[in-house]
């Protein structure tokens, strides 16, 4: 590591000291309304967050604290943030904030060097981002006694690949992670890698899956999670679709919830972010039969822009009953006959 890199890393580490972050949160306190939870019912909150550049850890910490506090005040036990929540922290990179106010992330990086990829930025920022992000959310989850699906963070891993990773922080201090398995074209351009595993996590609230955004475009994700036992699927999203199209938005979490008989909780990142205009609704979804109006929606934000928190109760007991009464009639023999062939044909460069 040369002197310049050492200096940069030193500055980043100073800006992301966990003790400072946790101390700030503790000073603000964790007072909250005590709600007696109903057995088998989970009160969920989905956050619609407007993107902004946080140039200090404190800005990020305060923003997240205020959001969590507002959701907890309404009795939320599960709070779902949007995809790329950690991207607000790119501003902690010394000198990058002012550049990003004038240019896209690609343009800003071109000023640094022609061969610099966005993934390189995330590699450089990785350690500091992880410290701020994990300390903030784990302190809040523990302090408030709630589960926080903290959206996702783009982070480097040991083998230098950069992944978009969904996170769930539990009150008892567990950090559960799920790598995004279907990347958007832009993420591929940025040099990110896709995951090849899906997991369902046993929690005090139920069995939870944590795919990320584009994963919901493909039915396979939710089907695998359902078969692995998921009851609640938390989906952080950040959709660079502007102007907002309700029809195109209908191609994500809503049909996946119907196909797989799960609850879906979607946090949405909106606003101007790194040269993109993001739109979308925070929403909480259920199978048609479990919603008052038969439309599969338990709570959806009013507008696809601006900030919001929507809340709904997920009746996991009712979901289990529905599954017993209307079981999926899958046909494994059909899938065994065709799936290996059709997917591997595609893998070898087949087209349709």
């Amino acid at each position, binding site marked *: 590591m040369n002197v310049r890199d050492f200096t940069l890393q030193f500055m980043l580490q100073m800006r992301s000291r966990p003790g400072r972050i946790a101390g700030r949160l503790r000073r603000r306190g964790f007072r909250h309304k005590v709600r007696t939870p109903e057995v088998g019912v989970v009160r969920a909150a989905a956050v619609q967050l407007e993107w902004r550049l946080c140039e200090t850890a404190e800005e990020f910490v305060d923003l997240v604290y205020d959001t969590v506090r507002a959701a907890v005040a309404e009795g939320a036990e599960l709070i779902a943030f949007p995809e790329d929540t950690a991207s607000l922290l790119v501003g902690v990179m010394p000198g990058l904030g002012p550049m990003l106010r004038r240019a896209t992330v690609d343009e800003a990086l071109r000023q640094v060097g022609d061969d610099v990829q966005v993934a390189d930025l995330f590699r450089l920022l990785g350690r500091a981002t992880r410290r701020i992000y994990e300390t903030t959310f784990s302190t809040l989850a523990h302090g408030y006694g709630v589960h926080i699906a903290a959206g996702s963070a783009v982070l480097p891993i040991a083998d230098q690949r950069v992944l978009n990773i969904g996170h769930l922080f539990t009150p008892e201090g567990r950090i559960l992670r799920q790598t995004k398995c279907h990347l958007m074209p832009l993420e591929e351009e940025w040099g990110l890698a896709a995951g090849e595993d899906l997991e369902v996590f046993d929690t005090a609230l139920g069995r939870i899956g944590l795919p990320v955004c584009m994963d919901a475009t493909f039915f396979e994700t939710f089907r695998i999670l359902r078969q*692995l036992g998921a009851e609640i699927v938390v989906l952080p999203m950040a959709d660079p679709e502007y102007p907002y199209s*309700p029809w195109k938005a209908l191609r994500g979490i809503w*049909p996946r919830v119907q196909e797989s008989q799960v609850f879906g909780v979607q946090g949405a990142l909106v606003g101007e972010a790194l040269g993109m205009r993001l739109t979308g609704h925070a929403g909480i979804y259920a199978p048609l039969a479990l919603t008052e109006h038969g439309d599969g929606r338990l709570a959806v934000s009013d507008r696809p822009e601006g900030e919001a928190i929507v809340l709904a109760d997920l009746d996991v007991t009712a979901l289990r009953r529905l599954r017993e009464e209307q079981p999926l009639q*899958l*046909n494994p023999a059909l899938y065994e006959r065709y799936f290996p062939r059709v997917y591997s044909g595609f893998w070898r460069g087949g087209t349709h």
Partner: protein
Amino acid sequence: MATFRLPPFAAPDAASFGRALVQAAESTAQRNPADLYLFPGLLALGLLPQFDLADPEGSALADASLKDAYLAAGSYAARTLGAVVIPGTVYLVTPQGRLQQYAAVFDRQGNLVGEQLQTHRDAVVQAVSDEISPVAVDAGVKVGLLVGRDAWYPEVSRILTLQGADILLAPLAPPAPYPSEEALWGLWQEVQQNQVFGVEAGLFGMLGDLAYAGRAAIVAPCEMTEDDSGFLPRPGYFVGTGAQVATLRVDDIQKVRRDYPLLRHLNPGLYRKYLPLVYRRLP
């Protein structure tokens, strides 16, 4: 392409069923002749006014002549119209007395060029197939048939698409009520996640004691319609009586796929790990 929303035909025999198909098609053809006509599911059960789903063995459904009548009528209609015809669906009964749902495709000469049994069970259909393939109908165009509840199992559309289907055809007879939300997570959704065309035909009205509430629609990827709805023609699901007509150009679909190659983002490495093994689990 023409698709229909129709009540059951009260046709006493194959000849009158065939003529009824042609008549329905010609009412459309006068305005806009189609290359392919898709009729609603179970339309042929009008041949059997006394059918009893609760007792298929004891009912007239057990009569193999029902399939023969369905095939004869479909062939006649295709020949007469000079078009590809899917004359809806018909129930068949296995030797064990269990119901299957069956659809057939006829070419312009009236030849049977494709057959498909429903592949996923429902409350009525208890005997299903584990084979499914698209059918080449015209100038290299391949269609895939979604029979009955198959339209709500995305595995079927994915298998058909990855085998080369350009158009998914759903000759449906959904029991009432059939709200638009349920329709949207059926064929409409399959079209979007596979970047193909989709055509839905719907039976409505009473058949015996059962009420049906089908809809008709011709659907494309959202990117191909000005209002992003994906409906061709607009504004959405047709709930009147008669036909919906639209021209589908496979070249246009190819352009959507080139502009945004959605299926290039499939993750076969992930699926290889979990599919089809995970289906043997019962969560």
